[in-house]
């Protein structure tokens, strides 16, 4: 082969490599559902701890700060059809993210201050790493039948609780105490420390244990302290499944939690469902999550937030021309349909409706900003990663275009976005499952006190997000009773009781309601202080 032809061959090979990399970076992913590829647990690992009876009487609040109140089950409101989209795949080269395990120091196993009512019989969980349901077979779940399914009709909702068909469970085994000992509950958390939504790892590290340390000082959860195992999912669904698999199969966590990122949460939730591991996250898309029996959203989904945002545009902003811009991922299809339908129903004029790549290039973002400007949109409904949002707003500002940015989400209302995006983002408004720091002392004075006590400084909003989520989980673990198994945990959640934290919205679930939050906070960027402020607490409409 001549040198020249060799070079052409190498050039072609490199072009293919570039194309593949481009595909990965731009989110052109194959639909490989991680749940279906979840490796079943090895057979023969019997349930540990014997067949402990599940008994979790309502009202069993222990010495925690959270309130767990019985009753008040919201009426189920139908919602989105179930999709089977399980994004996975593409990834940009990135270094392996570090994970960490942090035992929470606390007073040994002092019993709870208040004994649980209607608590468990049988021995407390013994050792970790025991039973896992084999695959999806309900029969193998060891009798832990969760309530049957209820088909959820498609359609919009503005109310609390979205339902969907929850199939006969690949449910947690009744005696499955993986991750639970007499003194410890191990919980796995994944979040994007690197990738398209990079958050300071130090903030995550400082905040992740604060609530559990606080709770440990109050006796823990029936004498148990919580240990958090943390992994960086790199804002990449395939990496998310990988770290969730590690946490379940190697770290033997009791439950999994997703902090942010709709694709990563969807991918991990589907894996967890296949393994019968309860999975909780702040509300994101419903597509791909509806129908998973082990999934529970701790705040409103994007679809549930849509009516709140539309009512704000109509009744507070008094604007009529809106544009809709979403990240280009299949997981957000239903959100796009939902906001389009509701905006049209409210008489709003949708002047542009577009998607941008997860890692959109400079050219794409400037073109999008220019197209938005040309469309004359007064309000831009935005559901993208923080990095895309900041770059889009910066490009729009460079074109002398400053619409009102508004959207659902978990992460766009963080102060780091205001710090980076101001003044381009203007008075951007985003719903959020947690309030901002300006009102937290009023809503929950324990947060800043605890953060200062354990970290020696004022807490930030990332720590607040972790505090709120931990508080919800803590309330749920309390409700599950002393005899904690995955099944008793799921039963406690499905009981219909309200979980109230005064940080996250009140949330309740039932056998067919997995999106059970009733409200959100509305945050607004204040570019003078480069922070977000809370302009409405626990709101469900305007």
């Amino acid at each position, binding site marked *: 082969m001549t*040198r020249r032809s060799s*070079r*052409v061959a*190498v*050039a*072609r*090979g*490199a*072009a293919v490599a*570039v*194309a593949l*990399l*481009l*595909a990965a*970076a*731009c*989110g*052109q992913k194959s639909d490989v559902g991680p749940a279906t590829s979840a490796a079943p647990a090895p057979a023969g690992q019997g349930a540990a701890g014997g067949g402990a009876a599940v008994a979790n009487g309502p009202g069993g609040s222990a010495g925690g700060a959270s309130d767990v109140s019985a009753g008040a089950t919201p009426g189920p409101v139908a919602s989105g059809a179930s999709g089977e989209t399980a994004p996975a795949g593409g990834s*940009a*080269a*990135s*270094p392996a993210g570090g994970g960490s395990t942090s035992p929470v120091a606390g007073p040994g196993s002092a019993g709870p201050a208040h004994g649980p009512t209607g608590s468990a019989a049988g021995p407390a969980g013994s050792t970790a790493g025991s039973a896992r349901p084999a695959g999806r077979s309900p029969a193998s779940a060891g009798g832990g039948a969760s309530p049957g399914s209820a088909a959820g009709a498609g359609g919009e909702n503005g109310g609390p609780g979205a339902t969907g068909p929850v199939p006969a469970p690949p449910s947690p085994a009744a005696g499955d105490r993986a991750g639970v000992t007499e003194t410890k509950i191990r919980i796995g958390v994944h979040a994007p*420390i*690197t990738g398209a939504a*990079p*958050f*300071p*790892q*130090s903030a995550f590290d400082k905040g992740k244990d604060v609530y559990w340390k606080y709770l440990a000082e109050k006796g823990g959860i029936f004498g148990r302290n919580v240990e958090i195992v943390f992994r*960086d999912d790199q804002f990449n669904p395939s990496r998310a499944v990988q770290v969730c698999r590690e946490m379940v199969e190697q770290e033997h966590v009791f439950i999994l939690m997703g902090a942010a990122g709709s694709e990563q949460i969807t991918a991990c939730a589907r894996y967890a469902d296949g393994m019968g591991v309860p999975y909780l996250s702040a509300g994101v898309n419903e597509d791909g999550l509806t129908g998973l029996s082990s999934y529970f959203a701790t705040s409103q989904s994007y679809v549930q937030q849509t009516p709140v945002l539309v009512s704000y545009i109509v009744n507070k902003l008094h604007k009529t021309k809106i544009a809709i811009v979403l990240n*280009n991922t299949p997981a957000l299809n239903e959100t796009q349909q939902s906001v389009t339908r509701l905006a049209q129903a409210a008489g709003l004029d949708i002047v542009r409706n*577009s*998607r*941008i*790549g997860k*890692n*959109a*290039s*400079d*050219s*794409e973002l*400037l*073109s*999008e900003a*220019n*197209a938005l400007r*040309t469309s004359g949109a007064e309000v831009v409904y935005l559901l993208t990663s923080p*990095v895309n949002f*900041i*770059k889009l707003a*910066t490009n729009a*500002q*460079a*074109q*002398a275009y400053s619409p009102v940015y508004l959207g659902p989400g978990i992460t766009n209302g963080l102060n*780091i976005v205001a*710090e*980076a995006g101001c003044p381009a983002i203007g008075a951007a408004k985003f719903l959020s499952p947690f309030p901002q720091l300006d009102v937290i002392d009023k809503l929950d004075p324990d947060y800043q006190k605890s953060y200062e006590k354990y970290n020696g400084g004022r807490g930030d909003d990332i720590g607040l997000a972790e505090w709120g989520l931990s508080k919800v989980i803590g309330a749920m673990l309390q409700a599950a009773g002393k005899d904690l198994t995955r099944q008793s945990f799921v039963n406690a959640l499905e009981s219909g009781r309200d979980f109230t934290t005064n940080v996250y919205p009140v949330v309740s679930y039932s056998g067919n309601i997995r999106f059970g939050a009733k409200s959100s906070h509305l945050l607004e960027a204040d570019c003078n202080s480069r922070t977000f402020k809370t302009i409405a607490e626990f709101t469900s409409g305007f």
Partner: protein
Amino acid sequence: MSAHVLAQAVVIGVITGAGYGLVALGLVLVHKSSGVFNFAQGEFGTVAVYTLYRVHDRIGVPLVPAMAVGLVASVAMALATERVVVRRLFDAPRVTLLVATAGVALLAISLELWLGEARLRFIQPALGRLDRFSLFGVQVSDQRILILGTLLVLAVLLGLFFSRTNLGLAILAVSQEPVATELMGISVRRLSSFIWGLAGLLAGVAGMLAAGDAKSFGPGFMTFDALIPGFTAAVLGGMNSLPGAFAGGVVVGVAQSLAVSSSAFKAIPGPGSVMVFVLLVVVLTVRPQGLLGKA
């Protein structure tokens, strides 16, 4: 698509494509002289940006000297890569070198994460005016004019360097017949160091200009944001053509912009990326050597 929208898309494509072209220029330089696809090119630039940030924003050194320090850092990294990695694999297949440079990039990103934490840093552009002039309704900032001008100047200078100077011709000779060149008394290894140092310099310039335009950066900034479009631009333009790098960058920028702006692509999610793929396939099928490359 109206003529006005088309004109806007072309303007946007040119001013954003210049950034891709600047990265492509460094890639072409290394490939032209050594046949290596340098996946570490983006990280040479990121290191320059981190250094600039540290020296200017943290220590308080004025911008121009701080930029010089940033360039020194990127050149130093490029030279270290050449000495530690490339030179040891001098006789290895080019694919091995390609993988080795990818390893250097990943190592650099890991170090940036380790030392700098995975968070966005904010940086001001060298030139802050956003509305220097408006072309077909698209405002063009001073920073983007600077990027475009820098790209044009560098492409011309490098073109002249390779065609008109003895050193440039020697580098071309090394890339085509290293043994014969060595026999003529030209040190191949010394030339290799020179080329990689120059590539580091170009990456440093590209990184600092791009970060100023984006106003923010983080670990792996240039690799994730600019390397893939830069590679695409280099392949489109012809991997051995310096003017082709410029043309390729502009073509990628214009193609993405047209796809996003055109209502014809409205039904396609993420049309910018799709358009680049289509363009890449078409060019490689019809003209494998690229737009300005020689067959």
